[in-house]
């Protein structure tokens, strides 16, 4: 059979014969697959980000200066630079009540925000880790590095410019980049890690440049991470610490509160997105069905001629469904392509825009999501056209040709 009268050739000619209608149909399917793909990736990325936070916040309780808990949230979430210090007696006070609240391990961290020195540099969060006592950052930091950080060495987050072997300058001190972290979808991506000896040197230099001490009592501890003994509840212990150390400028923050608040926001966003996707899906089915129905009503004579020429009802249905398949396939592929572009363009700024941890799925999962979105959009388009096609195939040849 020559190509010109094959089913697909006739379907293509039909698409080209009414470009306005075909254009609208493609745009509808394109928007459906676009939102389907982007929406699913968004939900998946937010879930991934929340899981990443839960996995990496290995501390049961964080001890922060009183009134600074929102700062800790923004540091952990988006890496927003901040400099604050606990009173110098914080460690001693915690040692005194260690057994009462079930503290198993304590590790101090030092935060230091760099200066906005010139137009092309911007403040980043420096974090000093006590490698002797650390039980949180060290395990996954060592995966990237393979050994402990030496003095003058740093590990940079995923979004910080700098590669192993490079030298970065902070507070007039040159530091060697020893490694880069994998993407975490949270504040760690914008942070720079070093040992506490190195950050102490930088803090002294910062005091000299700022011409004032960072903290009057000389403390260089920003947060103390606590690990509880088995059987102790982080909520109950945090409340007990706050009661015992009341009015001492110390506040105990249980990590689950932070993770729970993220999870609660995530559930709300997921619900809104899912509802929007279902509404969009229904809308797409109705619009595609309506446009096909109207189009086939206009083409009753054409259907009658085809029936008179010997085309069976099955052929007519196949012809219309092939047309719907081409239109849906083209729209779906375009939608996923545009969606991929939007994800590439906007995902780097997603953490700040959404104020939530955001970790893109792996490339394999992204490709899988793209294929599923394409498939769903094509099936939607074809199913929406099915009813109109069946109806059009029932045309009465005598009535139409009269």
């Amino acid at each position: 059979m020559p190509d010109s009268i094959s089913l697909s050739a006739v379907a293509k000619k039909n698409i080209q014969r009414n470009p306005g209608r075909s254009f609208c149909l493609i745009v509808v399917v394109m928007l459906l697959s676009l939102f389907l793909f982007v929406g699913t990736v968004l939900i998946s990325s937010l879930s991934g980000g929340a899981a990443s936070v839960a996995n990496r916040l290995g501390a049961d309780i964080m001890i922060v200066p009183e009134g600074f808990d929102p700062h800790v949230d923004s540091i952990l979430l988006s890496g927003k630079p901040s400099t604050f210090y606990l009173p110098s007696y914080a460690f001693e006070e915690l040692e005194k009540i260690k057994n009462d609240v079930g503290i198993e391990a304590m590790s101090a961290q030092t935060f230091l925000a760099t200066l906005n020195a010139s137009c092309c540099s911007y403040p980043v969060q420096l974090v000093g880790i006590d490698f002797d006592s650390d039980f949180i950052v060290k395990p996954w930091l060592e995966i990237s590095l393979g050994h402990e950080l030496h003095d003058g060495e740093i590990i940079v987050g995923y979004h910080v410019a700098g590669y192993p072997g490079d030298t970065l300058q902070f507070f007039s001190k040159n530091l060697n980049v020893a490694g880069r972290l994998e993407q975490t979808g949270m504040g760690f991506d914008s942070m720079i890690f070093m040992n506490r000896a190195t950050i102490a040197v930088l803090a002294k230099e910062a005091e000299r440049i700022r011409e004032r001490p960072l903290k009057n009592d000389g403390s260089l501890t920003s947060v103390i991470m606590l690990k509880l003994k088995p059987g102790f509840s982080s909520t109950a212990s945090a409340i007990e610490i706050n009661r015992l150390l009341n009015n001492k400028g110390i506040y105990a923050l249980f990590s689950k509160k932070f993770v729970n608040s993220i999870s609660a926001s995530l559930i709300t966003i997921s619900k809104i997105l899912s509802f929007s996707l279902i509404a969009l899906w229904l809308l797409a089915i109705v619009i595609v069905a309506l446009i096909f129905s109207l189009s086939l009503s206009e083409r009753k004579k054409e259907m009658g001629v085809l029936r008179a020429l010997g085309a069976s009802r099955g052929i007519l249905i196949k012809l219309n469904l092939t047309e719907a398949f081409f239109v849906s396939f083209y729209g779906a592929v375009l939608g996923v392509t545009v969606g991929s572009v939007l994800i590439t363009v906007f995902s780097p700024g997603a953490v700040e825009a959404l104020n939530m941890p955001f970790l893109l799925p792996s490339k394999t999962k992204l490709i899988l999501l793209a294929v599923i979105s394409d498939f769903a959009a094509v099936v939607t388009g074809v199913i929406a056209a099915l009813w109109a096609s069946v109806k059009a195939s029932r045309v009465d040849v005598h009535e139409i040709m009269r």
Partner: protein
Amino acid sequence: MKKLFGAVNFLSGLFLSLAPFVLFPVCDTTEKIMGCYYSGIFITCAGIFIALISLLSLFFSVWTKNFSLVIISAAALSCWLVPNKIIELGPCGLCANPAHPCQASTMPAVEIIIALIFTVCIAGIIFNFVKGDFSSRA
């Protein structure tokens, strides 16, 4: 219609090439040449490239096919990806200070032009399909 798409892309390409140094200038160069200056050069070159291909599409129908629209949209998108360092290209970048001209005026204008070019290209690709230009045969 294809000529209209070509004309819009030609004008957008022109605006894009003029944006970083004439219409919405990037930051002034002092003794230190900043990343936004190099980004400006990149955007200007990309704008000229887009305008050139669009101009060809006004006179030669072969340049109205999907491959040229894909090239134009890729060039337009690179004007966002390169300054924002999503694609790292030499010293290209932007100033960190949001109040600086490159962040406050150049990039917002460039983003609008990119969005326009990208939308026109997508519309062009759909139009080519419904009008029978299947690009695989182009």
